[in-house]
């Protein structure tokens, strides 16, 4: 018997496999096909203070071994989330843990969402999406050390729940940003969000994506995600959630060996909605074959001579 559970954020994840934000809606969408409550957990689509319609089409397209997306944070907004989405989560997910992905363009935006959710039950904590452009500074929170520090500190004051910051890979040294999050009170990190990218239709000479640029995800970014996870773990003590291109148990295990306590699966769920349950099963099988009784022992077990 292999124990896949992971203890972190003061609770137990029954297994380390979560669904990534923006790729699983609010859980309900997949409930027809897979037993969502058997997963380690889900991370909701980003919630912003107000409802957002999102970007004009085309929003997504395939790229080599991946995809580009510019959804534009289309979401039901804080109130919509509480009214339309949280009730289903509360009712159907008791074992899978839920992180609410939070986005905004100012510190107030983020804090507003967190404060608005703080008294609700049905979810564990927050994953803070710092890849959105910061209104005040123009750049992303996630690429500016000072803005990031202020944001994390403000959020720390706003909540006692687990606070996970989702880092963008679009920086020179992700370890520095990991440190800043830890120092300002984050309980964990998610690595990584998408890479900025662009796809051009050479016949029309226009960008394929309505928003011109978008984020690249999928297997193409897996080696970068593993690298970022490994770099981040070497600089912080707080647990890390590995993300980027995971398609199966071996991919998940790369992240775990690199130091991730949990993983998230995003784009691969589009290729096959069974990817997450198959990954859980696959992890169990690999552990059995390798004689590993507790998957938690594999976290950071990479041997670098």
């Amino acid at each position: 018997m292999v124990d896949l559970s992971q203890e972190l954020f003061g609770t137990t994840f029954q297994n380390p496999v979560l669904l990534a934000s923006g790729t699983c809606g609010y859980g309900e969408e997949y409930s027809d096909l897979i037993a969502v409550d058997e997963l380690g957990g889900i991370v909701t689509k980003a919630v912003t203070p107000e409802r957002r319609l999102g970007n004009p089409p085309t929003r997504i397209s395939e790229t080599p071994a991946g995809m580009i997306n510019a959804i534009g944070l289309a979401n039901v907004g804080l109130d919509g989330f509480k009214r339309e989405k949280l009730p289903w989560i509360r009712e159907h997910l008791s074992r899978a843990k839920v992180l609410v992905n939070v986005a905004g363009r100012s510190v107030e935006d983020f804090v507003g969402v967190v404060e608005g959710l703080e008294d609700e039950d049905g979810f564990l904590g927050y994953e803070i999406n710092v890849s959105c452009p910061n209104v005040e500074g123009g750049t992303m929170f996630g690429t500016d050390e000072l803005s990031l520090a202020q944001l994390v500190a403000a959020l720390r004051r706003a909540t006692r729940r687990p606070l996970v910051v989702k880092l963008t890979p679009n920086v020179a040294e992700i370890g520095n940003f990991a440190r800043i999050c830890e120092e300002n009170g984050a309980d964990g990190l998610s690595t990584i969000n998408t890479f900025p990218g662009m796809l051009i239709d050479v016949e029309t000479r226009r960008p394929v994506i309505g928003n011109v640029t978008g984020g690249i995800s999928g297997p193409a970014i897996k080696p970068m995600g593993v690298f970022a996870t490994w770099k981040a773990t070497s600089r912080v003590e707080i647990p890390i959630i590995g993300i980027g291109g995971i398609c199966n148990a071996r991919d998940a295990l790369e992240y775990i060996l690199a130091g991730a306590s949990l993983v998230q699966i995003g784009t691969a769920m589009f290729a096959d909605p069974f990817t997450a349950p198959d990954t859980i099963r696959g992890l169990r099988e690999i552990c059995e074959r390798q004689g590993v009784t507790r998957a938690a022992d594999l976290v950071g077990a990479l041997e670098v001579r």
Partner: protein
Amino acid sequence: MIRSWSPVVARERVAEETFWLEFDAPEIAEQAAPGQFVMVGFGASSWGTPFLPRPNSVAAAPDGRVGLLIRVYGAGSRRISELALGERVLLLGPLGTRFELGDARNVLCIAGGVGLAPFLLLPRWLDRQGREANLRLLYGERVGAVVFNPEKIQEIAGIEADIWTEDGSRGSRGTVLDGTGLDGADLVLSCGPTAMLKAVRSLARTAGVPCQLAVEEHMACGMGTCIGCAIPTIDPETGEDVYSLVCTEGPVFAAERLRW
């Protein structure tokens, strides 16, 4: 919604760059209604082309099979078109909305290119529902070489297609719209290139005939989780400009909801 690894049980090149494929997928075949689609993919462990599944309309559902009419457009549709007998693909479906016939008696179906697919399913599906209606099918292509054989249409769908080609090499010369006196239709259904759909919408609007259009947009999940397939629409209740998901709120929309 069914997910199944389904083998190719029939494959035929039916016109230039155009293929007819049948998959053994009884549950999907049983449920699928005209306008609905399946995502056709290769799973998550092969990250070759395509990685994302591709949406394709269910064009027939005989004997537990799902029939698709595939035109080669890019690398994904090419790979699907080249599937060998016995090869398995991951099907997810049936997905999306269907054409709603309501009480319509005289239904005019206007198809452009492989927009023909849903109308191949329509007649037999109506039969199965015990529903009667007079269907008229206009089917247009740019050139004769890509026209799906009228005998084959007859065989699959049990309906005669009125064929139009721009080069006049098959059927009548011109576009389907040249053949469109709405004569007596109390419902217009259409699927095909956006330019054609827009023209159909104007025609129907002018004639005051209700019109439903099946539209296309890039998709990843096909089931409403990625929010990727949004198109500009008008909220029927508030009249506001919004976006709607082609995979769950469509692909079939009432023409007046589309904001083009």
